């Protein structure tokens, strides 16, 4: 292979037809309130871990729904499961169990 000093750039676009939706499918069944998130971000605003890190549950839920799951494990490992997000959520998403179930899915599919 030749070296031209450049190479193909990685596509930033989410290819929904090919992305990995296993976590989404699992969590949707196990914790149906996963579906009713409106991505308002209240959870992230109150997040104890989010105080100190980039942890963003709102974004994580959105990305999992799109099958973009790289980095989910690392992000999720910061969660202390304290439950502030559950109390703050205006829509009644059981965020703690969403996280618990995402963890299970990560384990189940060795992601």
């Amino acid at each position: 292979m030749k070296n031209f000093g450049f190479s193909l750039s990685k596509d930033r676009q989410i290819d929904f037809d090919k992305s990995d939706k296993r976590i989404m499918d699992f969590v949707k069944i196990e914790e149906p309130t996963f579906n009713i998130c409106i991505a308002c971000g209240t959870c992230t605003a109150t997040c104890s871990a989010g105080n100190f890190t980039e942890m963003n549950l709102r974004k994580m839920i959105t990305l999992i729904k799109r099958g973009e799951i790289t980095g989910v494990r690392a992000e999720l490992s910061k969660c202390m499961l304290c439950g502030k997000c559950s109390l703050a959520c205006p829509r009644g998403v059981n965020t703690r169990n969403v996280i618990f179930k995402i963890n299970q899915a990560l384990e189940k599919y060795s992601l």
Partner: protein
Amino acid sequence: MNRKRVIVIGGGIAGMESAANLASMGYDVTLFEKSQELGGHLLGWEKLFPTMRMGKDVVKFLDKGVHLAKVNIVKNSNITNASKNGNLFTVSCGDGAKYESEALVLATGYDIFDAKRKEEYGYGIYDNVITSAELEEIFLSGKPLLTTKGEIPKRVGIVHCVGSRDEKVGNVYCSKVCCVTAVKQSIEIKEKIPDSNVFCFYMDLRMFGMHFETLYKQAQEKHAVNFIRGRLSEACENMDGSLLVKVEDTLAGKPLRMSVDILVLMVGMVPSEGTKKIGTMLGMNFGANGFLKSQDQHTMTSISNIPGAFFAGCCGSPRTINNVFADARSAAMMTASYLEAYDIEERITYI
């Protein structure tokens, strides 16, 4: 004593309801409808948001209203002229008939945005791109929703704001009903094809009406309808006839592409040709968006710049059915008070 006469133009919800109300107050009302059937756009809708009741129930209610109050109905009316001479309005039809009245209510409604103008979505070019109105026709006909190849769609995309809030097509306003229509239709698709995945591509979800938010939550919770915040930049046809859509998922902060088997365009409301035609004949004022303009946005709704000429329903702005009912009754009330020589303009203290 001769009864005072009112001409109502447009046999949709607004026209029928204001005609029925005016006639029930004792006026001699003549209702003009350009087609051969009363009911307007409502005839094309199966179920209505947010209650999912049948559209035809509402048509029946309206029908009964005009018949019980003995409204004179002129169907297939081809109005060639409408004008005000002195205190009398005159309307002439294509068959030479002439009608006169002391007051007039314009209820000429809206037209559906021509989705072909949003060329990048490929309506009229790609096989499986349809409009919300066409989807409703499918529901109404009782036929199954199938791709042009006759297959049951696995994925359906719904594009909000087609022809609304879009400077590119010259419509900067919100058509109000499309968001909740999308939610309603996505629920209906899921009820008919439970295995399908429905994706709504929205800019903002404007669930302003009572129970709309509940319907939206129901769509998410019970039917697992997906909502992706991002406007389609374009749709392209894949080899298999499915459509590749491109959006930015603004909540994920990434561009996204996906294939859908059917793409439904939520077409908005535009001022109808009839409104333009008859409003111009009468010399009525139009607002910047091409809908009829009231004398004052807050206090003088339904009241046009022509004394004795009023308007009701979607010829004034996009409205939901319940808003049209309220507007039609308000226009009827304003018409009646005009005929009883009530001077509302007297109350205007501002300039």
